[in-house]
């Protein structure tokens, strides 16, 4: 009952004219960011974090969540029309979305994407409202040992699933943790890796680093690639259909559940949610032979899965302080900037904030539905703007974004250095998402490891014997073993036949 009261208050707050304007504007910006290949939801949330520093917390989080939801939704347009995922989360939507477009049903494909996105997001919002309080309550029993493993599992999982070589992903996660240790040590205020520089005492700013990693690095990458041409130029009716929701209700339900579950897993993210939902739908669909050739079931599964994982990723971010994805990690940092302390105590100290986020996610879902019903064709013009015009404008925003948090040139230099390093590492096949998780979770891992060891007087046993720790340590071990060829062969002999998924 308290929850409903809080949700009612949140929705009443969000019904103000400014809030509606913020929600619509931010969702539109998010969709445009998602539409442009290379500009990710993480970059969108990071850039808008810098713009909203001076706004009241609820308005700022409203804008950031709307950008996040809008970007993941907007990326499906590019997947359908260009066969290039607008964001990593939309890669699975390319398979059937672009095939539908090539059959002259691009509008229908976009309508289906809207249906799946809205249904998935709504399902996720319900789960966010239901599960966050329970997870928070359960997490009150967590100690330093559990939080150490949660942080490590987040970094490890992100490294495992986001690149082609998990080892490179883990190295990026470790690099992120190292960067997070630069500055004053959080327990004894002892400077680490500062080389006597005052600017480094405060540490490497998360937002400038992320703007560099996802903005500057992407600009360099995009300018080196040949320009892609649109495969489809005409669009039929784009309206979502209720009949699709009814006909594919089981796909929506299954993909919603999978999306939320994958979202809750620390560090996994929306792209894996989309792929898992797509694979599950292909396994049980009556039209499985149509998958990859323009299946409505496949497209709806992919889009439901990735959008359901957005509220899913917010559940551990709010309840544990461990984000479920890279954009959720940036969003969590923004929450901290605005005075909220995500973690088990959030439900105790600021329960209204949790329900504000639930209400905000609901508003963002309604906003993508609105933009899915109207403004589809006008929004698509952005795909015609040459990247040579978009990229310098984005770079000016990157400079402004890095500067405006603390108004220091040091942050602009941080953005440039991190961006250049990430560009080189990406060219060598190193994924950037684990770096984000490492940067955000590094502090938790550091404090939890040292506090845990102090509590146990240097004894490592509690890290491996407490029930949750056993589970998380086992999960970490499985991720490590799965990368050893002999162990992988042993596991695959006991698992489903290759290609079954």
């Amino acid at each position: 009952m308290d929850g409903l009261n809080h949700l009612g208050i949140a929705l009443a707050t969000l019904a103000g004219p400014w809030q509606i304007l913020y929600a619509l504007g931010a969702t539109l910006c998010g969709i445009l960011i998602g539409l442009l290949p290379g500009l990710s939801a993480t970059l969108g949330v990071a850039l808008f974090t810098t713009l909203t520093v001076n706004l009241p917390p609820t308005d700022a989080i409203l804008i950031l969540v709307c950008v996040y939801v809008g970007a993941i939704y907007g990326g499906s347009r590019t997947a359908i029309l260009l066969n290039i995922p607008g964001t990593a989360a939309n890669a699975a939507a390319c398979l059937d979305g672009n095939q539908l477009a090539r059959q002259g049903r691009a509008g229908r494909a976009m309508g289906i994407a809207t249906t799946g996105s809205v249904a998935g997001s709504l399902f996720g919002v319900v789960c966010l409202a239901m599960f966050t309080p329970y997870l928070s309550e359960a997490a009150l029993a967590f100690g330093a040992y559990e939080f150490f493993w949660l942080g490590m599992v987040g970094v490890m999982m992100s490294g495992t699933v986001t690149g082609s070589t998990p080892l490179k992903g883990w190295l990026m996660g470790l690099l992120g943790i190292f960067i997070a240790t630069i500055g004053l040590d959080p327990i004894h205020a002892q400077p680490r890796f500062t080389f006597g520089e005052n600017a480094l005492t405060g540490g490497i700013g998360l937002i400038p680093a992320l703007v560099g990693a996802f903005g500057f690095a992407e600009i360099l990458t995009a300018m080196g690639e040949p320009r892609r041409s649109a495969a489809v130029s005409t669009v039929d009716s784009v309206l979502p259909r209720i009949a699709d929701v009814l006909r594919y209700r089981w796909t929506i339900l299954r993909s919603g559940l999978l999306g939320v579950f994958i979202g809750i897993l620390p560090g996994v993210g929306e792209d894996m949610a989309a792929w898992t939902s797509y694979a599950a739908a292909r396994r049980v669909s009556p039209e499985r032979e149509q998958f990859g050739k323009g299946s409505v079931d496949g497209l709806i599964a992919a889009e439901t899965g990735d959008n359901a994982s957005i509220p899913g990723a917010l559940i551990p971010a709010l309840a544990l302080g461990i984000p479920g994805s890279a954009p959720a990690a940036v969003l969590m940092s923004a929450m901290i900037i605005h005075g909220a302390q995500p973690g088990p105590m959030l439900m105790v100290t600021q329960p209204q904030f949790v329900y504000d986020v639930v209400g905000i996610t609901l508003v963002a879902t309604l906003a993508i539905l609105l933009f899915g019903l109207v403004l589809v064709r006008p929004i698509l013009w952005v795909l015609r703007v040459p990247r040579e015009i978009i990229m310098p404008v984005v770079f000016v925003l990157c400079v402004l974004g890095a500067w405006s948090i603390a108004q220091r040139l040091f942050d602009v230099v941080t953005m440039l250095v991190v961006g250049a390093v990430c560009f080189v590492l990406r060219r060598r096949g190193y994924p950037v998402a684990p770096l984000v998780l490492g940067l955000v979770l590094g502090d938790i891992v550091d404090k939890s490891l040292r506090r845990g060891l102090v509590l146990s007087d240097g004894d490592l046993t509690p890290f491996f014997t407490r029930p949750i720790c056993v589970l998380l340590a086992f999960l970490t071990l499985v991720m490590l073993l799965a990368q050893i060829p002999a162990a992988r062969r042993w596991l695959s002999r006991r698992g489903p036949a290759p290609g079954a998924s």
Partner: protein
Amino acid sequence: VSTGGTTDEPTPRRPDRGRAIEAIAWISFGLVLLVAAWRMPRLEAQHIAPWSAPGLLPGVVGALMALAGIVLFFTRDEAAAPAADAAADADVARGAPDARTAPTDPPVGAGRDGGSAIVVALVLCVGYAAAGVGHGIPFAIASALFIVAFVAWFRWPVWRVAGGRGVVRGLAAASAIGIGVAFAFAWLFESVFLVRLP
């Protein structure tokens, strides 16, 4: 769900000097971290528990990096191309079309791309951010100059196809975009977001 494109069939060992250099770089970096962490103050004089020493996690991270670097050195390269984009590789392994082989515009009028484009973009971006911003030039003017220079350099081949008139029209459009965007951003940040610009 498969998360990689690996099979049980043995693949021929692909000698990759770049991978070995990467591995050595990671090992070196890890060892440097380990040494730096070891040399950090342990605050014994303040009777601090040794397990809460500031260098503990950086040391563990350095050791793990060095270990991962050693594994990387001896790991067979399963990726087809050493410089391939990881996300694209992973997606292709899962069955998605390869965005890198998607249809591209014909070369004429398609602008510049490739390695030289990256270098020029890098020079322009670093020049603007490191030298143009915060060194006396008003932000809006520096930004406008950067945008015009960037657009002009990369759109020049497209404009040239249309002849002298195309060049003039292109330059005029680039100037309008550069000046418009730069001054709009400056106004937005200073007047709406109340950010003091460099």
